[in-house]
């Protein structure tokens, strides 16, 4: 099968890859490019573990064909922290013990970032509905919601 040549940007870095037409962005990120921070929980768009941003839009990378990344800006969990350290969302997830097994965490960090980029001061209900596409089986969400609320505060008033 002839492979497609795709040029895209991942976490601000230009990346070239070859893919089969039916391969998802998730599969290429993980199996071809070795960026396994983005997780597969269902591959049907129901769990949010594979959440990434494409041009700042929150998507399930299991529902995006790899070829669709051509010319787009993709952000994965590996691109959230900076030279200064962890993003406040990541820091607050740690401080609030908002992860237990941690496999949903990359998707939740991405989804929370997408929310706070749009709405810097969401109320609890807004956070709960925005994150409703990201399944967590360990925490009961309580500490995740608190971490996002606290991250919003930190982002609004950086130390």
């Amino acid at each position, binding site marked *: 099968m002839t492979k497609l040549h795709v040029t895209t940007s991942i976490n601000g870095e230009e990346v070239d890859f070859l893919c089969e037409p039916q391969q998802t962005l998730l599969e290429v990120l*993980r199996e071809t490019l070795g960026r396994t921070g983005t*997780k*597969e929980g269902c591959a049907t768009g129901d769990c949010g573990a594979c959440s990434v941003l494409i041009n700042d839009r929150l998507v399930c990378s299991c529902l995006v064909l790899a070829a669709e990344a051509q010319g787009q800006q993709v952000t994965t969990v590996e691109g959230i922290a900076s030279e200064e350290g962890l993003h406040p969302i990541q820091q607050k997830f740690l401080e609030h013990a908002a*992860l*237990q*097994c941690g496999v949903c965490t*990359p998707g939740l960090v991405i989804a929370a970032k997408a929310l706070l980029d749009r709405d810097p001061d969401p109320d609890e209900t807004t956070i709960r509905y925005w994150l*409703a596409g990201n399944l967590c089986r*360990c925490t009961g*969400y309580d500490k995740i919601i608190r971490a996002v609320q606290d991250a919003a505060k930190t982002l609004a008033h950086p130390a």
Partner: protein
Amino acid sequence: MAEAVDFKVIGTSPVRPDGVDKVTGRAQYGADLNLPGMIYGRVLRSPHAHARIKRIDTSRAEAIPGVYAVICGRDFPRGQSGEIGGEGGGDVADLAKNVMARDKVLYHGHAVAAVAARSPRIAEEALAAIEVEYEVLPPVLTLEQAMRPDAPLLDEHLYTKNLPEKPDKPSNIAAVMQLARGNVDEGFAQADVIVEGEYKIPMAHQGYIEPHACVANTNEAGQSTVWCCTQGHFEFRAMTAKVLEMNVADLKFIPSEIGGGFGGKTVIYLEPLAVLLSRKSRRPVKMTMSREEVFRATGPTSGTWIKIKVGAKKDGTMTAASAWMAYEAGAFPGAPMGPGAMSIFAPYNLPNFKVEAFDVLVNKPKVAAYRAPGAPQSMHAMECAVDELARKLGMDPIDLRLKNAADEGTQAPYGPKFPPIGLKACLEAAKRHPNYTRPKPPGAGRGVAVGFWFNVGMQSSAEVHINENGTVTVVEGNPDIGGSRASMCLMAAETLGVPYQNVRALIGDTESTGFSNVTGGSRTTFATGMAVVKACEDIIAQCKARAAATWGLDESQVEWQDGHAVPAPGVNADVKPLSLADIAANAARTGGPLLGRASLNAQGAGASFSVNFGDFAVDRDTGKVDVLSFTAIQDAGRAIHKAYVEGQMQGGAAQGLGWALNEEYIYDENGVMQNAGFLDYRIPVASDLPMIDTEIIEVPNPSHPYGVRGVGETPIVAPLAVASNAVRDALGIRINELPLSPPRILAAIEAAEAGAR
């Protein structure tokens, strides 16, 4: 109640040592390993719930370019027998037949063949090219059907165990169990009030977010290395060795980070297949399950059918209780009816009781452990009955439970007398909790229930290394499923008297640390924690000896205080205390590196009790149930990492509420699960739940150096009955089948209205 203890780090909530890697995507889970030359394995699964395999032809699949290996039942050794211990244990032959069907398929999704190919797509093409001829048999899908004497048999060689006389014909009932005390007939005769109920709960899945995954790599000497997500790599090694008849020494298991398990990753599925495929292909083979495969072929927990009867005097004193309980085992024996039977009356001081339990085969996946296996179902029945009893007696449901609550010295229904337990303390805390003393919201219902789990000890190993600068590396053998590295570091820091930040914990593979049973049974912080504390005590003894030698004192003249060796009180020595760092820096001159170790089979895992309550609103038009508030109170013995103890309580509450309100395996008449995906098997999402309030009670467990009781499993037990009792309170209707999903609520309302007309 124990005296107040002044801990330095225990009971705090520091950031976990593995945290940064988990929020940045660096942490490697089961499917995250890619090796050079790696190929992909896929499994062909049965399209029938019950059928005989007449013929399997793999030749067309093998001929496809890019296919490196194809295996089916005939590639496995046939001689397995014996038992495997532990939470994921059971009969080896059953385990072997579950990972790959031989002559019969016993559930829709049962593995019948597997392939390894250059890409997942070639592997899938190869699966489609395998020809399997089946003789389809009638499926047995319900307990009622399976228990009928004329039911079709899953296993023609299965005779019911534990009957007084060996049965003369085979049955789908794999085993029965009885538990009794006193005389229930007399007990019921003494009762002023008797309540009876009958409850059904369908199969439900653990629902961990990470599907099963592994990578196996086999060399030309037949030695295999398996990387996988597992709750216990030592037990996975033991099971894989048995199923493949391999020498344990030729198998190395490396545990990846684990994306949830809840009991479901205590048992092997893909690992022996990957080993065989890698042996045949002489390449590393990665196997990952789809979510659909996870639902169809792993987990779940038993569907149950339970009848219960409880009697009490007018003042609330319970006089007798009896229960009849049937548990679906799935395709092979091993339903958790034992713990179900032993837990159902555990919270109560009952002079007379009787339990009859049945382990029943049905053409559904073989059940696996699920958080407090067996207890949520049985205790749901009892806690609903106690709620009805409180209504009949006009008593507050907490007062009724307090009146009958088990306490230190009460003989547990499963045998021993309870050592100190926290049930009464939890009930009293619930009674005075502001969420309980406030009125319930208008129109809402309030439910209360008690939870319980035995907890286990079992085998653990730990080593403690003191680095040259005095920092500490803890090596242990229990995959960290919810923050246990942090708990180990806290206990090591407390014992050694060093800052938490100076301690790191890692999970050794099967070749780099001693045997440890699974992360399960709520045993890790208790038993492995105990091993870590003992290994630290070993270090302290060595440090004291080295300080004594340095100072020219006797070992008995040196004590360990706040991370320093100091002369004992009254010892006249003009010396400066030696810190762990001082001793480590000087280790070469005092006998070499400092290595402490401990291994044990931990005894005295204290039972953990909980009390949960919540306010629920029921929409009579749509049947939707909203959880308005939920409060979880639980005895943790001692909370080592407070936030992760709360996290267990909150996560267990959410999981129990999902089971109570929405989750169920829905089958068609052919035994095909109709909702094998997260869209239709709906676990709670963030917008389904409120904040979950917690209160940790600490009645220390005398068997643990810091008083720890396991906390992981108890939290899932009470929420089922809390939901049932709250919906009962809101609607005035007792619904006897979970989940309390909108269609079931609407049907109950309609039936009640039809009955009233």
